[in-house]
């Protein structure tokens, strides 16, 4: 028994170690983004973000000025040894020291030693640049400044809000009313409509986009909030209705009967009794739909694409990637701004999110 336990302990240690490595691998991409978003633009392009961690690096401890007439084509004499010009250009290591040109023309040579060091220049300039819509100043590596136009992520943040909140509330309200009817009312077509809803659960939205786009163009709904709310509502409806049906149909039947006896109408039962009782289910599916819409790119690209002033964040970032793909200071800050809300929702309401996932996934 004792032997077994020690074996178990050993395997637990191994499990922990393996899992820790996996977790590290999983979190490094996000950490890299977060760290980079606070580094000055010039630094990001010159050194990897991991250099903010303490690491051994060559630091110049002394500068030698060689005689002006040193011939660079001949072996060069440094502290009694000779090296070629190529060696000194790349840096040559002797014992603990390294010799590398600081300035070849002035014959200035750096003598470096390895020391612990870290690059700890941080700035919030990237965020100011990305959030603002107006001109902003950016510090250049040589100490000067440059003026550029902001990316207007601040406005897109609010656009995303204006798209996401109604696109969450509307389908959930509509789906809950429908789910109530499916669960507790009898009417012709009840079964066939529900079967259609189940069939629609996994239908790819691509099959709907072209005709909707045509309708929206003729109705003038392209590039409007109302248009994208309705689109998101329709695409989310099957899953939400199915989810809410499961929640509402599980409520005890006596509840309805006694409420009816008291003369309550279906509408009052729904708003005074059912909605409060299904709050956990509502919370789960709301988070699900909220994150879905917040993170969406395809639907907004197609229905909001024509109007720059209503662009949501995902479109803004995608445009930045396309037009300024090497401006990592802007990209990282913009991406992190768009992640803030989902991450806050996720960490605050993780329990509900997981519950929604468990309920929603089973049917794909």
């Amino acid at each position: 028994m004792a032997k077994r336990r020690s074996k178990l302990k050993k395997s637990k240690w191994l499990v922990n170690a393996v899992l820790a490595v996996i977790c590290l691998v999983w979190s490094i991409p996000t950490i890299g983004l977060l760290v980079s978003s606070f580094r000055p633009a010039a630094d990001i392009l010159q050194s990897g973000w991991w250099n903010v961690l303490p690491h051994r690096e060559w630091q110049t401890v002394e500068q030698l000025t060689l005689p002006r007439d040193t011939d660079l084509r001949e072996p060069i004499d440094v502290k009694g040894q000779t090296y070629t010009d190529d060696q000194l250009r790349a840096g040559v290591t002797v014992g603990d020291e390294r010799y590398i040109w600081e300035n070849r023309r002035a014959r200035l040579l750096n003598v470096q030693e390895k020391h612990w060091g870290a690059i700890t220049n941080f700035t919030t300039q990237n965020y100011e640049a990305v959030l603002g819509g107006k001109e902003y100043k950016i510090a250049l590596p040589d100490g000067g400044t440059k003026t550029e136009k902001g990316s207007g992520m601040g406005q897109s943040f609010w656009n995303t809000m204006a798209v996401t909140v109604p696109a969450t509330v509307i389908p959930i309200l509509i789906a809950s009313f429908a789910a109530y009817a499916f669960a507790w009312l009898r009417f012709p077509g009840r079964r066939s409509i529900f079967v259609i809803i189940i069939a629609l659960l996994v239908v790819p939205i691509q099959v709907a986009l072209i005709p909707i786009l045509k309708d929206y163009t003729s109705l003038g709904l392209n590039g409007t909030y109302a248009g994208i709310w309705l689109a998101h509502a329709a695409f989310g409806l099957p899953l939400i209705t199915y989810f809410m049906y499961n929640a509402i149909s599980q409520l005890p039947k006596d509840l309805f009967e006694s409420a009816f006896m008291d003369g309550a109408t279906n509408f009052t039962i729904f708003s005074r009794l059912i909605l409060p009782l299904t709050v956990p289910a509502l919370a789960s599916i709301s988070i699900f739909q909220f994150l879905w819409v917040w993170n969406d790119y395809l639907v907004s690209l197609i229905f909001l694409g024509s109007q720059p002033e209503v662009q949501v964040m995902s479109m803004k970032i995608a445009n930045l990637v396309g037009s300024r793909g090497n401006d990592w200071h802007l990209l990282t800050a913009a991406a992190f701004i768009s992640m803030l809300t989902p991450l806050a929702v996720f960490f605050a309401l993780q329990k509900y999110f997981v519950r929604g996932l468990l309920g929603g996934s089973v049917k794909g």
Partner: protein
Amino acid sequence: MELRAGKGNALRLLLLSVLVPVLNIGVHWLIFLFFRDSGLPPIANAVLAVLWGGLGIYSIYYSFNWLVEQYPDQWKRRLLPFVFVGPAALLLGWLLVLPTVRTLYLSFMNANSTEFVGFANFAAVFTDRLLVTALRNNLLWVVFGTLLCVGFGLLIAILADRSSFERVAKAIIFMPMAISFVAAGVIWKFIYYYQPEQEQIGLLNAIVVAFGGEPQAWLSMIQPWNNLFLIAILVWMQTGFAMVIFSAAIKSIPEDMLEAARVDGANEWTIFFKIMIPTISGTLLSVTTTIIVFTLKIFDVVMIMTGGQYETDVVATQFYRQLFMYQNTGYGSTLAIVLLIAVIPVIIVNLRQFRKEGGF
């Protein structure tokens, strides 16, 4: 509240039945016009839009319910369910069911939908080099994406179950699920970044260089393997989903069942293959289908990372391109229908499941 169906009452009902829908449409149309033309500052716009979106829908239900309440009891009972289901049915009909039928129709038409071309578009999908590449890549996504997500998900779920920091580990693995593919695209583009002849600031190339290798332009290198670097992003994001669901399934396996097997001398491998896998096979299947459906529709990652260049196109990106760049509604619709056909088995399974659970 017994209402006598007198003539005056009937007239009043008729009037109300016309007035309530007309008022609803009118009021919301006016609000819509106000929003479209107002040019409010974004914050005010957001707040007002949220108010309209929430209260507006509720008021529609409220007014129609009130209208139905005016009818005699027998009618009330018959009409009320349609007030409750109606909006959902209308929305689904207008924006999902009808469009699907219309897309099917368009897939038999030429590029600008003026001429019937029969199955020509479908033939093109399976012969045109661009489209065939998209199909092949989508297959790569489905196979590798699903296998890796399910495999890692299961592995991590089992490890987490036995570790000393389950909650933290699960939160870390799950976290990428909350962020968008666009943001994840930026994160990974930075990891794969390649600067010729300079210090490598992309993590992957820095690692390669540290081990003495040559830095690579990962996203454009030897095709079709660059697709795998895109699939890695999906794995990073969706493994958390598989893990959470597997974790719940593993926890529901009765502890004494596992204990009994251990007492009988079964080692952990036997327990895994002979007890765990059969017990959670249902969950395994449903997670696999969910991820397959998800990978079939993959769009954002490819769009952000490569835009479909370097032979990384998938069906959904090619769909977008046919539609907006080549203005070819025929090919676009056909690609959408191909996606639909691919999910039909899943639809059938779902409907069977529904019937098996007793339906109604």
